[in-house]
């Protein structure tokens, strides 16, 4: 079979046999692809630091007949997260992006919009700021996957929520008004809904530079994570770790 070449983002690696690595790549050409990088653990010469999670690479791989796993031939680093300092909050944020992409994307289905989103958010995560890129990524990935409900009306009565209080619940499919909110619902502020509307209209770079404390958009992130977890039917490991970061 012919060697394929594509831009890709490394999502995860797992040890396989004595010296190989099983690599999950998000390729621009074919979406999520799993492959084997032979001797990647033993010899660093062929792959070097290219298989670190969230490294943007140019990958060459070859599909094998009647085999699900592709053979990873080489990876050339285009952008590495190791190029700038990896603080603990940044490491958790990068892992969060990797986990969301790995859990949400189907195998072998190209999605250029998500690929572009991932690249722009990774660029945003080069600095010390994590909460803005994380919020932007969670919001857009929820929308691009088709899981984001209308944030402007109550899912129960259809009332317009703009200018009114809005609530969400882990088991509800959207926002609710004050009259229809369920027991143990959480409130999502009007500021956070405005923020979401702004994020839908502007690229991630336009939010860079301004201070973004953890509290800003925290209710929006909680709502998005609940929505995503309900759809994938599992808890996201990195969501809990993000929550524990103090600032």
């Amino acid at each position, binding site marked *: 079979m012919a060697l394929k070449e594509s831009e890709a983002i490394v999502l*995860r690696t797992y040890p396989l*046999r*004595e010296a190989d690595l099983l690599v999950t790549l998000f390729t621009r050409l074919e979406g999520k692809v799993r492959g084997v990088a032979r001797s990647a653990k033993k010899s*660093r*010469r062929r*792959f*070097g*630091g*290219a298989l*670190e*999670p*969230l*490294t943007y690479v140019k990958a060459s791989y070859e599909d094998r007949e009647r085999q699900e796993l592709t053979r990873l031939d080489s990876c*050339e*680093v285009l952008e*590495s*997260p*190791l*190029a700038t*300092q*990896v*603080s*603990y909050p*940044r*490491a*958790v944020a*990068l*892992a*969060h992006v*990797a*986990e969301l992409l790995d859990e949400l994307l189907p195998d072998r289905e190209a999605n250029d919009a998500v690929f572009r989103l991932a690249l722009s958010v990774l660029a945003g995560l080069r600095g010390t700021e994590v909460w803005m890129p994380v919020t932007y990524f969670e919001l857009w990935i929820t929308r691009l996957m088709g899981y984001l409900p209308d944030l402007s009306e109550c899912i129960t009565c259809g009332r317009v929520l703009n200018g009114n209080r809005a609530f969400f619940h882990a088991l509800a499919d959207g926002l609710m008004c004050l009259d229809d909110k369920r027991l143990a619902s959480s409130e999502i502020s009007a500021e956070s809904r405005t923020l979401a509307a702004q994020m839908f209209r502007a690229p991630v770079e336009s939010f860079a530079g301004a201070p973004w404390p953890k509290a800003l958009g925290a209710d929006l992130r909680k709502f998005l994570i609940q929505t995503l977890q309900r759809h994938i039917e599992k808890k996201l*490991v*990195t969501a*809990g*770790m993000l929550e*524990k970061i103090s600032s």
Partner: protein
Amino acid sequence: MSKFAEPMTRLIDELKKLPGIGSKTAQRLAFHILRSTDDDAEALAAAVRDVKASLRLCSICNNITDVDPCVYCSSPTRNQRLVCVVEEPTNIAAIERTKHFNGSYHVLHGSISPLHGVGPEQLRIANLMRRVEGGEVDEVIIATNPTVEGEATAVYLSEHIRRPGLKVTRIAMGIPVGSDIEYADEITMLKAMEGRREL
């Protein structure tokens, strides 16, 4: 019905639990043990028993040891005020092979790995903090792996152990000795340039 006698099946099943050992290898090892002398088989069984019974973690550095404190922490000839922090006990052997490091160690037993749910609280950092806070250390060398996880661990540690009078350093990264610059990947080359030193 099992292919082998019950004790043989049991041994194969136990050997299969070891990393990198599949059914065929487990069978081969089990038959090798069966064919070996009674003394050899007994020595193997005793070695397995002893490793579980006598080994523990050093109360100072978390290295795996049969005596507490371990040989590195109790040695009067080693510089106890110089501490090298590593991820795993096996990393100590790599540093010892240089024959140039005469300090002591601290083993974290892992690195920060958010994708696996491992945060700083899962690492063995507490006794390092006690050593640093007690003023027993002049320099901490952070020798975690040059990966995203190792870097995150190094940055986290450096932020948390920093004290006036304490030097915190990170091992250098770059081109391996004997290799060719032409074949170095971009990130390794970048780290090598960043870590350059004056001659």
